[in-house]
């Protein structure tokens, strides 16, 4: 599928290894345009989180090129204060583990952290924090210590801590992992709303049900850390062979009266077969 708009992120043959030993990505190329709703789909260990870290300007690949908003995304580029300032203002990253993201002593301080580091004046900081707390309906948590919250509350505070940044791009790492059904459903709605109001949303996940809602376009990473497919949501989710190969679904053996058979756990069409 060709993109009509100018890309905001471009990766060209990017490879990444941890400590020069463990390979996390092999020759990955992709492009993301503004206001897109993208999913990076892959099994555990396929390199999706690493890819998000690269897009967030936190990891820098030894091989390949990364461009963001028309500029090369390198360690050198971040030494330029104005570039670092402008990039961090535009891109927000939600970590998979909220305990990593919530390091401040209170919820209020956590939500105020990003606007304060970006040098906004006091009035603007207070207004952004109050707005984020109100939108996520967590005003009552303002003085609580983040580590004393439930997982769902932690996730909401983590979102509020990015919301107060007013980023253009949201990078979400396994956002629905560990959430109860109600919070998960709320969060999926929230991601859709973000995109509807004009944000670019890039989500790393292996949850096929979630992808159905939160992505228009999907990039698939194999267990060998290569980008092996890209396409629309419909194209990717209907390719059972691809999903099986990437360990994103599995053969499911079950019995219908006297008939026992196996098929992928997920199937888009109705499940019809003759019963004796």
């Amino acid at each position: 599928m060709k993109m009509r708009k100018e890309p905001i992120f471009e990766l060209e043959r990017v490879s990444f290894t941890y400590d020069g030993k463990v390979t996390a990505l092999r020759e990955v190329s992709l492009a993301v345009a503004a206001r897109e709703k993208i999913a990076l789909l892959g099994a555990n260990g396929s390199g999706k989180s690493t890819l998000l870290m690269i897009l967030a300007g936190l990891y820098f690949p030894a091989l390949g090129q990364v461009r963001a908003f028309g500029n090369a995304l390198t360690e050198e580029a971040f030494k330029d204060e104005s570039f670092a300032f402008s990039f961090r203002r535009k891109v927000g990253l939600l970590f998979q583990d909220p305990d990593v993201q919530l390091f401040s002593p209170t919820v209020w301080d956590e939500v105020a952290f990003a606007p304060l580091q970006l040098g906004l004046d006091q009035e603007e900081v207070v207004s952004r924090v109050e707005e984020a707390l109100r939108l996520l309906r967590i005003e009552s948590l303002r003085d609580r210590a983040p580590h004393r919250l439930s997982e769902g509350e932690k996730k909401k505070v983590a979102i509020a801590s990015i919301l107060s940044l007013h980023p253009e791009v949201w990078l979400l790492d396994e956002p629905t992992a560990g959430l109860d059904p109600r919070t998960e459903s709320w969060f999926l709605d929230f991601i859709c709303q973000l995109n509807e109001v004009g944000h670019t949303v890039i989500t790393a996940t292996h949850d096929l049900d979630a992808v159905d809602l939160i992505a228009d376009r999907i990039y698939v990473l194999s267990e060998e850390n290569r980008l092996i497919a890209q396409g629309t949501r419909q194209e990717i989710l209907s390719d059972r062979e691809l999903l099986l190969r990437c360990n994103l679904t599995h053969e499911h053996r079950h019995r219908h009266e006297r008939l026992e058979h196996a098929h992928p756990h997920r199937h888009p069409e109705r499940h019809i077969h003759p019963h004796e």
Partner: protein
Amino acid sequence: MRARRGFIERSIADITATLEKAIFSEELARKEGLLQNLDPRMKVITFLALLLAVSLSQGLLIIVALYFLTLLLAWRSRIPLGFFIKRVWLFMPFFTGMVALPALFNIFTPGEPIVTLWQTERFHLAITIQGLRTATFLVLRVGVSVSLALLSVLTTPWATLLKALHILRLPQVFILILGMAYRYAFLLLHTANSMFLARQSRTVGQMPGGENRRWIAASASTLLAKSYHLSQEVYLAMLSRGFRGEAQMLDTFRLKPSDWLWGATLLALALLAVLM
């Protein structure tokens, strides 16, 4: 039958319990009371002045009066008095008492004996009036100072107290590190506790000492590796939200007329206690 717990296991459980008590202290700090409603900066300044007064005052009765003032403040701040008094005086004999004990005797503090303990031609051991006075001064000064410090900690949430310390020119990055250390100590202690519980759930009977020690050493290294990994991730989370090495913090403290009145009264009292 309950399995006997080892030294390390007991220590970790005790540290966790102590931290849980700290949470209880936060609950006291969030109650509606006299000291809880004060501006924390004014509280820090006035309590420092009272501490100075306790150290410099030459009158036993004045120090006793300052202790009663501390108790009155604790009562007006809805701190359970039994808990407050016990927490200070229960351990006082073990620490300050031991230090003050030698001062009772004529060997260290010559003077008029009130009780003779041992008398020979060459050696005379007695408790002197001057010695008793010195020891009482020391115990009282330490007791009242600890009570004042405890009262300020009990009536101020940890995060707020840290922020208020900025008024004493404590660098913001130091305040940030203190806050984060407190927050992640909880997480790592809970992880350590879970590791012990996980082992307990898979252990039948008593483990040999050597094997126990090996397991503890292995757990300690796992925990260290985990905390190192966590610290790296937290740093990345901070970078992604605009942190550039210098922490920016915001205090939303506002001095009310009642804070000024409190400040003036307490500073005058402290000055009077020193001069009398």
